[in-house]
């Protein structure tokens, strides 16, 4: 499996200037909407602490809560399945569909099924899966994975969508009116809800106490898929458990505010039992989660509620796009989850960060994301997975930073250099720091020069 080169992929993303600028702006807009919503709630920080503590408690008792969920869901009339990994998950889903003679599946958004690469598995066995979330559908039709866990096609502009729809579902490729494109999606999917033999959803939360699960969406697609066909399958990662119904008060208040800056998703659905003459099957999926639970530094990432706030605020994510991470999960949360799947393949991702800590400060469940990123860097360096250029630069930096004399000389030379060097030398293709930014003017004196002048010699 080849290593993902995040920097190289990002440089291709940046080349499309209109796209890159819009991407940055759109995600920052989500961040600002999130800020406005959270600042309107006086107890927001208390909610964060509660959410974090509830998740940590649940994860420390996960075995018991999984058993409780299974017992109650089964008593409610749902069928509970288990899957060790992606392959077992796909096989379980396939067997349920096959037993019911399903040929068409209408599916709402689920990162877990992307993680399991379920769609091609089913397609190879003659089952058509229609993604029904607009963003996810755009990505399916364009044969690309989602680039964001909440807004899957956020890297595309309306013209791109018009082109994809024109090529695949026969709309006018020259019409990039957003209302027209959304209406085209509505008209295309509605007949599928009526003819599909099964609907599939993920879940945002699963409640041990009630044996129920919650699906938070906006488009109406998940509930059409779950309430029309007589078979509903929900794939749920084992970390989605919450002990009690009352805990939803905390988490539902936070999820959409963090994700989109809206007080709640338009549709927040609670599935406890199947309708008469219908079936609900729940697949509880491990796929590496129980391993992660045992990692001292990294199990906290299992608190994640997949809101995407860390992605929206991350300067690296906003300027490199989700696809450049080459993984199901991108952005800061992806950077700390992906290496648990494959350390070698994703060894460049923990370096796709400035460690500014913004991700940690917006996280509704208080995952110490930037600290985990730093810990992954240490592990990757220890295991000699660092790229050559980075290694050399770090060796040199280590030498300079460990010697006060060398450091002073370097700082003074750099200040003088920026002033005097011709532009062509600073802003050239070989200097990464001169790209897409103006290097700030150097101060007239260094801190040390200032200190020596004002503080030394006991003048005060």
């Amino acid at each position: 499996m080849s290593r993902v080169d995040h920097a190289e992929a990002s440089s291709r993303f940046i080349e499309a200037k209109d796209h890159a600028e819009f991407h940055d702006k759109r995600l920052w807009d989500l961040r600002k909407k999130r800020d406005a919503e959270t600042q309107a709630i006086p107890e927001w920080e208390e909610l964060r602490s509660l959410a974090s503590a509830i998740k940590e408690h649940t994860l420390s008792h996960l075995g018991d809560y999984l058993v409780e969920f299974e017992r109650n869901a089964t008593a409610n009339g749902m069928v509970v399945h288990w899957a060790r990994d992606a392959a077992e998950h796909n096989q379980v889903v396939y067997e349920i569909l096959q037993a019911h003679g399903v040929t068409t599946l209408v599916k709402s958004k689920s990162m877990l099924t992307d993680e399991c690469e379920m769609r091609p598995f089913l397609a190879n066995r003659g089952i058509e899966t229609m993604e029904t979330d607009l963003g996810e559908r755009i990505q399916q039709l364009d044969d690309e994975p989602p680039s964001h866990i909440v807004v899957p096609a956020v890297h595309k502009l309306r013209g791109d969508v018009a082109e994809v729809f024109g090529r695949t579902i026969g709309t006018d490729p020259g019409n990039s009116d957003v209302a027209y494109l959304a209406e085209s999606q509505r008209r295309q999917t509605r007949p599928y809800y009526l003819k599909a033999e099964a609907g599939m959803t993920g879940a945002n939360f699963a409640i041990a106490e009630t044996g129920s699960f919650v699906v938070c969406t906006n488009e109406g697609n998940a509930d059409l898929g779950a309430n029309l066909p007589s078979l509903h399958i929900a794939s749920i990662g084992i970390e989605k458990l919450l002990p009690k119904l009352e805990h939803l008060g905390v988490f539902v208040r936070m999820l959409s505010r963090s994700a989109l800056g809206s007080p709640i998703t338009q549709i927040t659905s609670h599935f406890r039992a199947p309708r008469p003459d219908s079936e609900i099957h729940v697949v509880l999926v491990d796929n590496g989660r129980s391993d992660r639970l045992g990692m001292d530094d990294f199990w906290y990432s299992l608190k994640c509620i997949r809101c995407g706030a860390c992605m929206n605020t991350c300067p690296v994510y906003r300027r490199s796009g989700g696809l450049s991470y080459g993984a199901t999960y991108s952005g800061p949360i992806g950077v700390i989850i992906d290496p648990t799947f494959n350390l070698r393949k994703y060894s460049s991702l923990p370096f796709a960060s400035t460690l500014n800590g913004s991700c940690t400060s917006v996280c509704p469940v208080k995952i110490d994301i930037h600290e985990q990123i730093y810990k992954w860097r240490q592990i990757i360096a220890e295991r000699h997975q660092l790229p050559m250029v980075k290694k050399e630069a770090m060796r040199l930096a280590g030498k300079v930073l460990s010697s006060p004399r060398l450091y002073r000389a370097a700082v003074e030379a750099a200040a003088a250099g920026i002033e005097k060097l011709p532009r062509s030398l600073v802003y050239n293709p070989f200097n990464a720091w001169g790209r897409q930014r103006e290097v700030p003017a150097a101060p007239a004196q260094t801190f040390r020069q200032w200190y020596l002048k004002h503080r030394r010699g006991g003048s005060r």
Partner: protein
Amino acid sequence: MTTTRDHVLARVRRNQPAWRELPQLPSFARRADGRLEAFAAALKRMGGSFAAAPAGALDAFVRARFPDARVICSATPEVAGTRSTAAVRDPRELADVDVGVVRAAFGVAETGSVWLSERELGVNAIAFLSQHLVVLLDPEAIVADLHDAYRAPGFGDARYAVLMTGPSATADIEGVLIRGAQGIRSLTVVAVSAPAAPSVDAPRRSA
């Protein structure tokens, strides 16, 4: 033979971190008054419409609001419409519904949401397959926030329950907000008191 279930549970139990306490949920200070106004404002923000109780009959109100509607399907005896959910055998029969009418069990002031389960919906799909949805809400049945909503007894025995907040919507293309994504195109909440005695007409099929 170890089953997958036992395998996953054994790994989880072996790896789960040391005991962490479950915090008690505090009761957050909230205003008891002005819930209807807060509800209406929140609903409007989420793209829904709010209407005060009409002077005349509810049927006339719905017809006046949707003059072009051919099929008006009602799940509440308070509105006759052209079809009752009680007559529906398969949820797909609702594909031609222009306007669905239901009565919510309660509303949530914080978010402008209405709470609907299979009891209120008659047929769950009415809230999604209809082009438009009219929801009757008793102004006295509005809880302050989501914490209170999750203390409502209905969750304990509803097979399906939805907190619906405005019409279906998407902003998946360039963040442009489209109201009326794949479910209902509009949501109108009418503040009208519940009939004095709870309706005891023929039990409606929950489908």
